[in-house]
């Protein structure tokens, strides 16, 4: 509702500025071009990094200091805290990183965003960057024709930088010509009243533009042209930081619990940092004056001093807040609790994980494992077995002997209520993810989808087995019970081996060899059981009708075991090259 009123109002205000003032028009055009540049840079880095950014954010966030450092570096290089946030929320949803790591990355990212201020003050104002902008745009467009994502990405980065430089040049030109008619510096305010008024301006500007980097670019260009006073510029920079929290909180309203948790972490960080910066603004200004000459910044270079101030107060914020990451994480987990998932609801597949290929693949894998675990529960219960006994150290024969009671389970009902939704979610999200993935990623998705289908087929296979197993138990046909116990024993053997594979932490080629051995043994067992059935028929111990049921059920059991082993290859071998070697259909 608020957005419906504010958006047209802002549109009218901008239109009025553009119509009435040609200088304002140039400045606003500069901001627009700058924002286009940021957008190109963000997309370019997505393509250029080819997953490297995601790998770095996943691997180097195990401790809070590491996470802060990674968040800082990633944001400083990519020049986009929103891209880093999207990746972090996506990873968090796929459980690739912990909430503590994600909060650390967000803190580091706040320091990383100060790189824009350095870029603008060091290059944007010192050299005639508009001269470099045009060649960058030309070469960027040419590189965009490339087939390889790396060059396409590099092209986008060049276009982005070109637009950013062009935007700064426009803003600078606008402020310079504006000064001839209207000197905003006349409205400079001293004391804490000025501090608060300019913080408010900075925050509003950031909320409107939705980018603290763009606000910082405006502040620095306005400062360099003398349109604003230095101390007011410092207040505006604090305001820009506070303004991002509003943007983050607004963006998180429609997000999942992870997005909300991170938005609150961001809010807490920026509010504490803002309060500290306001309280110590004059001391920090003095500190900047002391540090500036040491860094080779001229006393009169207010733009670079502002960039230094921006970095110092964000670093100070991290120093203050970082020791409290763990209590903050506990608070966030209490504030946004994990909703109790309804039966058959996906645990990992959300719109957020689909944003990033690495997390989309991992979420699909984990959801397929979720489907596997749920299906296995139904399968073992249908075979009148309990998982705690299966995965115990007890001898298989003893487990079989003791598991004689019938377990009431309606496989059709389980499928409809628990499994169908999960399976549908895997199908839906695997289709959605394909457009974001490369060839290998798509092949992996295909394998996961095939595995999900195999898992569902296993459940359907066990439905037939269950009927006969319980029938012969009911009529107490000992020979048939004995044969069915052999099938149950084979299932337990394979499940135990798969559990070992699941927990194995060594070479993945060893896992593949082990699975191949199990497949070989399973084939042998099928032959042995069929021989036993033949002798039972010859000796008139079982009727041909019974034999046909048993032969079918032997087939079902071996089909289940084979599918279990093939699922293990896809779900627990991460190296795709090794996984492909275990491909069933390639001999």
């Amino acid at each position, binding site marked *: 509702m608020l957005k419906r009123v504010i958006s047209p109002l802002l549109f009218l205000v901008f239109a009025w500025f553009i119509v009435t003032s040609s200088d304002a028009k140039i400045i606003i055009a500069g901001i627009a071009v700058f924002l286009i540049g940021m957008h190109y840079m963000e997309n370019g880095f997505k393509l250029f990094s080819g997953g490297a950014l995601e790998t770095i954010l996943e691997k180097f966030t195990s401790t809070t200091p590491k996470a802060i450092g990674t968040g800082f570096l990633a944001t400083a290089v990519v020049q986009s805290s929103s891209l880093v946030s999207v990746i972090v929320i996506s990873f968090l949803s796929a459980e690739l990183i912990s909430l503590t790591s994600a909060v650390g990355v967000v803190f580091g990212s706040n320091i990383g965003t100060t790189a824009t201020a350095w870029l603008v003050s060091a290059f944007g104002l010192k050299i005639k960057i508009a001269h470099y902008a045009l060649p960058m745009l030309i070469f960027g467009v040419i*590189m965009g024709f490339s087939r*390889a994502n790396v060059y396409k990405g590099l092209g986008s980065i060049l276009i982005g930088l070109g637009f950013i430089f062009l935007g700064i040049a426009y803003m600078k030109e606008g402020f310079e010509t504006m000064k001839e008619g209207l000197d905003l510096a006349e409205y400079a305010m001293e004391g804490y009243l000025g501090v608060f008024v300019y913080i408010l301006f900075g925050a509003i500007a950031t909320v409107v533009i939705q980018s603290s980097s763009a606000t910082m670019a405006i502040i620095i260009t306005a400062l360099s042209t003398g349109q604003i006073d230095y101390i007011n510029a410092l207040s505006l920079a604090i305001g820009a930081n506070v303004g991002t929290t509003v943007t983050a909180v607004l963006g998180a309203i429609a997000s999942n619990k992870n997005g909300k948790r991170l938005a609150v972490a961001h809010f807490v960080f920026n509010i504490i940092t803002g309060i500290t910066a306001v309280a110590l603004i004059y001391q920090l200004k003095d500190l900047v004056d002391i540090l500036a000459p040491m860094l080779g910044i001229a006393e009169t270079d207010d733009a670079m001093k502002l960039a230094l101030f921006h970095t110092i107060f964000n670093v100070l914020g991290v120093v203050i807040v970082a020791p409290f990451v763990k209590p903050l994480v506990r608070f966030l987990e209490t504030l946004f609790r994990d909703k109790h998932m309804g039966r058959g609801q996906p645990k990992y597949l959300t719109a957020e994980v689909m944003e990033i290929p690495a997390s989309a693949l991992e979420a699909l894998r984990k959801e397929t494992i979720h489907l596997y675990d749920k299906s296995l529960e139904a399968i073992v219960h249908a075979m009148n077995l309990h998982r705690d006994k299966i995965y115990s150290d007890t001898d298989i024969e003893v487990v079989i002997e003791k598991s004689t009671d019938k377990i009431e389970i309606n496989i059709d009902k389980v499928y409809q209520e628990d499994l169908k939704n999960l399976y549908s979610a895997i199908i839906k999200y695997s289709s959605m993810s394909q457009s974001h993935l490369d060839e290998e990623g798509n092949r992996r998705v295909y394998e996961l989808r095939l595995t999900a289908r195999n898992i569902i087929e296993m459940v359907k296979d066990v439905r037939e087995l269950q009927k006969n197993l319980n029938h012969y138990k009911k009529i107490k046909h000992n020979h048939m019970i004995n044969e069915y116990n052999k099938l149950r024993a084979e299932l337990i053997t394979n499940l135990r081996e798969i559990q070992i594979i699941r927990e194995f932490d060594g070479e993945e080629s060893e896992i593949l*060899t082990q699975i*191949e*051995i199990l497949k*070989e043994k399973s084939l*042998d067992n099928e032959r042995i059981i069929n021989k036993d059935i033949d002798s039972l028929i010859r000796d008139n111990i079982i009727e041909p009708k019974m034999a046909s049921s048993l032969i079918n059920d032997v087939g079902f059991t071996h089909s289940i075991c084979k599918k279990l082993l093939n699922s293990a290859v896809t779900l627990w071998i991460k190296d795709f090259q090794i996984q*492909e*070697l275990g491909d069933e259909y390639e*001999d």
Partner: protein
Amino acid sequence: MNMKIKDLMENIDDFFDLSKKKQKNKRDKLKKMIKSLEDKKEDLKQVIRKEANRDKKSKICYNLCKEFKAVNKLLKKAKKRNS
């Protein structure tokens, strides 16, 4: 003009082709796997021979034969991929 730029980019792509590097890494990895499987096959042969001399029908011998068969199957697949 457009096509010419595309041709030019394709040439540059071929020159700096990253997929070739990726493919080389994959081939190297496959070769390493083949070597390790071949070593394993040879080791198993020796152990099976010793075990068969002791008791041909033992469970250990059976398990070793299954392992040998599995390793051999993987080795065949890996060699097929490598060719």
